[in-house]
């Protein structure tokens, strides 16, 4: 057991490397929902007071937090189970790239569903294989310095959004807890 824990610990990147990757995940997850929230906001203002809209949005923030943590977990699990050279090495670049791939794939899934009104079963079933292929592509393209630097730069700059999204989400959870407990 100790050996397994040690093995796992050795394959989890440091916080300094996880944070920029997570920042990109939250940027897309929160950003997607925020875009639609603003899209629907004018309609809501027709019949909801601002405080009511905010109360409703606390649940949205909570869900966004859980969604982003889940995707981060997927990336970290991949990091643990795959050989070190695949994802652990150059985690900021590879983790960011693969995270972007995952969220873009989710967007594609949603777009496809909106067209055919059911989830494309092939897109769901083939996802693990496609993910591994994507990882391979990420590793190969990492040799192109320009791409690698760009991705890392994106991850670095996305960190500022993390410092907004996470505190707001925590406040949202506290607000929900207070309302739920009253």
């Amino acid at each position, binding site marked *: 057991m100790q050996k397994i824990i040690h093995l796992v610990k050795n394959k989890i990147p440091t916080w300094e490397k996880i944070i920029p990757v997570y920042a990109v995940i939250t940027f897309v997850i929160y950003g*997607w929902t925020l875009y*639609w929230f603003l899209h629907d906001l004018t309609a809501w203002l027709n019949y909801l007071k601002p405080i009511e809209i905010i109360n409703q949005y606390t649940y949205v923030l909570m869900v966004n937090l859980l969604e982003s943590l889940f995707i981060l977990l997927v990336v970290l699990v991949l990091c643990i189970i795959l050989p070190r050279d695949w994802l652990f090495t150059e985690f900021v670049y590879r983790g960011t790239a693969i995270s972007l791939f995952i969220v873009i794939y989710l967007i594609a899934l949603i777009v496809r569903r909106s067209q055919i009104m059911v989830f494309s079963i092939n897109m*769901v079933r083939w996802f693990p294989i496609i993910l591994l292929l994507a990882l391979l592509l990420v590793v190969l393209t990492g040799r192109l310095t320009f791409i690698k630097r760009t991705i890392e730069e994106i991850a670095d700059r996305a960190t500022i959004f993390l410092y907004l999204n996470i505190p707001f989400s925590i406040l949202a959870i506290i607000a929900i807890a207070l309302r739920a407990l009253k």
Partner: protein
Amino acid sequence: MNKISRREFLKLASITSGALLALGNETKTGAITNTIDNGIPSIVIIVFDALTSMNMSLYGYPRDTTPNLERFAQHATVYHAHYAGGSFTTPGTASLLTGTYPWTHRAINLFGLIERKLARNNIFNALGEQFERLAFSQNILPNYFLEQFPEDLEVILDPASFSIDNYLYGSLFHNDRINSYRAQDFLALEEPTVLSRSLLFGPFVNYLMEQKRATVNKDIYPLGMPQVKNGAFLFTLADLMNGIGNTLKKASEPYMHYYHIMAPHEPYRPESRFYQRYEADEFVPIKKPRAKIDTGYKQVRLDANRNIYDAFIANADHELGALLDTMEKNKVFDNSYVIITSDHGEMFERGVEGHLNSHLYEPGIRIPLLISAPGQITRKDIYTPTNNVDILPTLTSIIHGNTPSWCEGKVLPGLGGVDDLERSVFTVEAKSNSTFHPLTKGTFAIRKGNHKLIYYTGYDIDDFFELYDVENDSEELNDLYPSNPSMAKLMKEELLDTILSQNTRFMETRE
């Protein structure tokens, strides 16, 4: 009643109702352990969402869609000119629950709420704590209202009660469901061509629902199992009616129960034994001119969907029959007022489908109302125009001997009210307006005597009116507005004056 109020008594005792626990979805505790017999009748209101009286054999529709309601009618008062307060669930249900028209309760938008400071002006509060007050709505939209006045209800059943599965995660937040339901509605929206607002949660819930739908036996449900359109659960009509029957069986008198059933609201999902019942029958809907606005559906599609809708009504009526049998067996009709109605109708004509449109033709707003009084054994028929805003004052008149001053409805004829043929009733469609501003765009209808005037205003075309003698021309084929100027003028003045005074009053109230 002793010094301890009924509400306090209910809160102190624990729930023992096996049916409620088996359903697993009760959200407030109360004690239903002793029968209180003090001469006060119980009240049961059953609302069938999107049921138009124009498609009911009870009201003369050529298809045999409602034989069990006809059976119930044999010991009930049947209202033949009954109207919804609004043309879709939100305003229609709010009008029933508050006894006011949409320009007062302000729940005019699809996901709207009752004006916050008026929320306590509701049927449950008006009837009082002496009742065990329970409300259930499969449709999420009325649940928003119920969550606006939780202190007036001992029990609010979860919308997914009596359902197969429950993916309504918003229910987890018992004390804040008005926000959690809205959030889930936003995140897990399931509409054609609309993108999910969340990347994981919404698709996850929709995926679970999809998987569940795929397991449904197509031999029994060829179009899929009945489903709540804006909620994440499937149900069978049989389970639903059984559940309601069991809940009534466990209730302690006097009780006031409100049940808002999704059928026959779309998606229309009749069982196979009803599904194609009307596909090849001789009934041919009357061809009508296309409406001036908000059309787009071909008649072939409208006719096909009408067939399925009628089949769904017949299915719901069939299962209602079992519930009525249970109620009869448990002597509910001996000591209760049983009210069966709808919140709005449904259209399949003039290029218009459904109810979320801009029209107030008869199929969209003329709804059933049947009321069985305790011990009633004969049928009564009322032809005077009435409206769902009349249900609240009728019940308070029966129970308390008076009607609330804020109510816009009147006591129903046949239950203490007068047959007033000169009385006007209204229906309002104003979903494009802000609830916080006067109503400037919408469709308004006034029914007075035999005539109905419809007023369209604020649309992309010039304002216009249509006038029909709906008693002699129930299909509204002859627009009398040009040819009956005196009636048109009379009703137009009254309608415009009413709208103006309501808008003025609204502005004064807000100031």
